[in-house]
């Protein structure tokens, strides 16, 4: 059984998407295309207050004046907005009180994802807000969270139940005019998650949301808003996977994090959307705007494991506004076949003694392109700002690409900025060494890759780390015969 680096690379290209299936739930969907009428339709469907409709329409007006960005190191056919369905909701809109009431088919979907709800509830105590297409269909652990005054619900529900909080914070970190896709999201978002942790409360469990694109041709425009009030702490998990599709699906989410004084938000993502087949047909376009703001002594930590999507464009960022605030970004991005990822972070240092850490691990296989793009910006008043960045790239084949674009803008001479970067090829020597110790090639690769990503995986909550490792294995395993 010969196994050279090239054969290995070839095997990796044969890796078919494991979670490709479509759940058959009748949808209640809007006609394709984008117009003011569609936006009014969405807003009316969701029984939204006037201010929110106005917010949407204003975002739409802004969006019309913008053009799609082209600076990222990715190439794709721009989605035709008039062919996208901007709203689709499962017919059954009644809320579930307990998991027993949840549609069996939906449970089946979750099982295929390897995250049976029962299991999750029992083993991990994770409260899950599961988004199937655009409407949240289930929310759990609500009562327990209620006792502590924690709000964790779908975005639509928050609009109805806590309009003052939503209105106060929405759009304050990512303004509607921020970028093309953020503006689009602001105009047409259908649902997402909302989370509020009151002053001084430590959220006792990981809050988790599984997103899933389910309806062919439906763009998903989630909106997530997490507000951690003074002195509070929350760890938030977001994971997703999508069914196999031949046409490209657009996904443009906006995530806003607000960490008030002394608060801490840990936001972890495992992203596993359909990446397209091995010829590069189909797959999700994932254009996400994620940003958090830190007040004094606050901390925001982004951790992401990105294995899916045909095209990814994503820069979870931190605005370190308050003195002594801390921003962290830990990322593993895997690309295979024809996948393209342009991902990284922005650390904007405004306050004094602000600190940021960036650890980025790119893994490219097949003919994929994997780019790190990072900006560290030290403003005039950010005395004693510190940044440490480490960007490593691991190549699995001769045909893939890894690129690093670190940008530094420093306007305060007391700043200390360190940047390290490495590029390496997965070693035939390492694989041989493992094999000589009785470890087969798939296990060897998984071992080596997990070792390479260790600093990032260590940041994830235990149960999520296990899932992430499984994903890395699936994304990179070959069919050794």
């Amino acid at each position, binding site marked *: 059984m010969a196994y*050279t680096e090239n054969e290995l690379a070839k095997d990796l290209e044969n890796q078919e998407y494991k979670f490709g299936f479509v759940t058959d739930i009748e949808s209640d969907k809007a006609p394709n295309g984008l117009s003011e009428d569609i936006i009014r339709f969405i807003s009316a469907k969701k029984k939204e207050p006037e201010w929110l409709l106005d917010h949407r329409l204003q975002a739409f007006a802004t969006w019309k004046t913008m053009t799609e960005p082209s600076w990222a190191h990715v190439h794709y056919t721009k989605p035709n907005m008039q062919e996208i369905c901007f709203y689709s909701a499962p017919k059954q809109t009644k809320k579930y009180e307990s998991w027993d009431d949840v549609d069996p088919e939906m449970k089946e979907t979750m099982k295929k994802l390897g995250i049976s709800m029962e299991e999750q509830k029992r083993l991990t105590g994770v409260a899950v807000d599961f988004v199937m297409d655009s409407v949240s269909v289930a929310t759990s652990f609500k009562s327990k969270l209620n006792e502590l005054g924690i709000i964790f619900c779908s975005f639509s529900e928050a609009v109805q139940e806590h309009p003052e909080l939503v209105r106060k914070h929405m759009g304050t970190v990512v303004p509607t005019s921020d970028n093309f896709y953020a503006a689009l999201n602001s105009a047409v978002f259908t649902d997402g998650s909302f989370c509020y942790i009151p002053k001084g409360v430590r959220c006792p469990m990981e809050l988790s949301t599984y997103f899933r694109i389910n309806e062919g041709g439906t763009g998903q425009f989630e909106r997530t808003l997490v507000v951690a009030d003074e002195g509070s702490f929350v760890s938030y998990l977001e994971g997703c996977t999508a069914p196999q599709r031949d046409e490209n699906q657009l996904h443009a989410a906006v995530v806003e994090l607000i960490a008030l004084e002394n608060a801490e938000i840990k936001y972890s993502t495992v992203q596993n959307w359909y990446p397209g087949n091995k010829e590069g047909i189909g797959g999700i376009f994932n254009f996400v705007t994620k940003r958090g703001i830190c007040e004094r002594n606050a901390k925001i930590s982004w951790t992401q494991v990105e294995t899916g999507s045909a095209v990814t464009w994503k820069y979870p960022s931190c605005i370190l506004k308050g003195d002594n605030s801390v921003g962290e970004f830990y990322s593993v991005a895997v690309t295979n076949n024809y996948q393209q990822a342009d991902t990284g972070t922005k650390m904007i240092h405004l306050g004094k003694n602000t600190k940021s850490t960036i650890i980025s691990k790119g893994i490219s296989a097949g003919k994929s392109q994997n780019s790190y793009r990072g900006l560290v910006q030290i403003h005039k008043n950010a005395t004693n700002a510190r940044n440490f960045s480490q960007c490593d790239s691991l190549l699995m084949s001769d045909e893939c690409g890894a690129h690093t674009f670190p940008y530094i803008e420093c306007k305060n001479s007391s700043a200390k900025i360190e940047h390290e970067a490495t590029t390496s090829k997965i070693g035939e020597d*390492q694989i*041989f*060494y493992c094999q000589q*110790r*009785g470890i087969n090639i798939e296990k060897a690769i998984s071992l080596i890759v997990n*070792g390479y990503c260790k600093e990032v995986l260590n940041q994830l909550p235990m149960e999520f780390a296990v899932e992430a490792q499984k994903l890395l294995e699936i994304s990179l395993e070959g069919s050794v015969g």
Partner: protein
Amino acid sequence: MIKISNLHASIDGKEILKGLNLEVKAGEIHAIMGPNGAGKSTLASVLAGREEYEITEGTVDFDGQDLLELSTEDRAREGLFLAFQYPIEIPGVSNINFLRTSLNEIRDYKGEEQISAKDFLARVKEKSALVELDSKLASRSVNEGFSGGEKKRNEIFQMAMLEPKLAILDETDSGLDIDALRIVANGVNKLKSDKNATIVITHYQRLLDHIIPDFVHVLYDGRIVKSGTKELALELEEKGYDWIKAEVETH
């Protein structure tokens, strides 16, 4: 244990092993010496199953099995162990994790149960003591940042953990200080039994003061050109390889 007959192997079209014969029986220790570039490491790699080499002729019988038919990992699982001349670093993977994975893969192959955490740790403790390996090294990333000598000692530690039938030590003595040399040799001697065998590749006769070989072979230009006992190593130390080369040329 192992019988190598008329083995020819080449890499990138260049023949390195040119009809090599060697038989090692259970309970024996064989030393292989020979000038740089003779093909000693190549022999070790070929036996271990490195894919880059093309076997053009010859057979290798390993305990009744056709070794060359086995995959690299199955050779290891059948009990063939190679202590690398240049041990490989695997960042982020702890020695412990690596060894546990290795041990369990081998047990799985043999239809045995996975080793329990308790038994595993007991074994780590016992074997690291045997080769006097600093217990901190056991939990560090595989060979990463290890000194040259520590890497070699770690190879012997792994050998002790896996208890192979046939161990091939490729210049495990080079880079070791006097004490480490004695420790490594002790380790090898203690693991010696009538059921296993060892092939020691070395340039220095001093290792053979500690590990007493039953046979000493000279590998030159891809062949075993001379075999003898411990005295041959002494003779080589004294006279170098020129006389052997001359002998080979006149034949």
